[in-house]
């Protein structure tokens, strides 16, 4: 698993770590019951504070992505991928509704909107 810390990012470092581990779990790179690196080891390797990595793990645990066993470490929790997808679809739906509202206000046509999505998509692909 790769974790990239960007100092220029607006996201705090704990959130960058949290999101990348979450993504690795969701795309199957990290498997259920897999042992995660210890918070101290992760902090050492990424050169961040132990408090930062601990916070990332705490939030992953709160969101049900991992579970910790005292004295043993943190493990990837079983994920209900279908449920996850459903949640993401809900989010997309809410956001698209909002986008449509703004597009109407800005007087954008359907085609213009699609064009914008494509442009952003290709820019995003370059960034990755």
């Amino acid at each position, binding site marked *: 698993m790769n974790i990239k810390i960007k*100092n220029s990012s607006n996201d705090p*470092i704990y959130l960058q770590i949290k999101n990348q581990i979450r993504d690795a779990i969701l795309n199957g790179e990290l498997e259920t019951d897999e042992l995660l690196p210890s918070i101290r080891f992760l902090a050492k390797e990424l*050169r961040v*504070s*132990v408090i930062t990595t601990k916070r990332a793990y705490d939030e992953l645990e709160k969101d049900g992505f991992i579970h910790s066993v005292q004295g043993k470490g943190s493990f990837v929790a079983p994920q209900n991928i279908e449920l996850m997808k459903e949640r993401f679809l809900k989010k997309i739906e809410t956001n698209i509704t909002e986008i449509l509202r703004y597009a109407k206000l800005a007087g954008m046509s359907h085609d213009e909107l699609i064009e914008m999505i494509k442009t952003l998509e290709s820019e995003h692909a370059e960034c990755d």
Partner: protein
Amino acid sequence: MQNAIELRGLKKRLGNFVLGPIDLTVPRGCIVGYIGENGAGKSTTIKLLLHLMFPDEGEIRLLGKDVQEFTPQMKKDIAYVFDDLYLPEDMTLNNVQNFHRKLYGQAWQDKTFADLVARFNLPDSKSIKHFSRGMKMQLGLALALSHGARLLLLDEATSGLDPVIRDDVLDILLDYIQNENHTVFVSSHILSDLEKVADYIAFIHKGQLLFMETKDDLMNQYGIASLSEEQLEELDDMAIVGKRPHQFGVEVMLKRELVPSDFELEKVSIEDIMVYMIKGKRK
């Protein structure tokens, strides 16, 4: 859980300078950066911790015990690195090791010391007066880490050293706190190092502890903006921590929670926080 350092109402008067009263608690397993100007009281605090100087008032507890009750055997639990070695200059590596073996008795770890000496590439034939500044600090660090100490105090240990050696020191400190019973308390001017690894930042100014906070919270609390005088006027006075006016505008450090959320703020460094806070106090 046992704390690594507990200071209660610690006070020390030295001529016109008064340190404290300081109350400070350092939990186990973390790295604390102790920052402040020259003469703010950083070294005095560390000398008091090591019982090289005695407080006028207050209590110092290290690893759960009052320092006054420390026996010579218990001193192995505390290690320190200063800006110099304070050893006879004619000693070679071997002499230094023999001396420390006698000093620390059973607690002394030959292998740990040998490993660190090899890691730093320290010469065993030269007497330490021929060591460079960096080599002396590396030797100091090797000695400090070779008697099983649970608390490591560094007083300006890396000042005047090149970035590569400082980077090695960071690695060693991070290795050290892989054991969650180990704690590092480091006073330093080189704040970019601390920015990377410290869990907490404690800031002392003119003998007073201004705050001790987690580094993450600290750095999220403030932001820097470049403004015009008019824009500055519109801001809540309470939001302004410090400012640097110049001919073409003003740079200000602001408390994020007190400015409108659409306000564009840049990230701060620990150095920014120190400079703006001290200069802000001067006005």
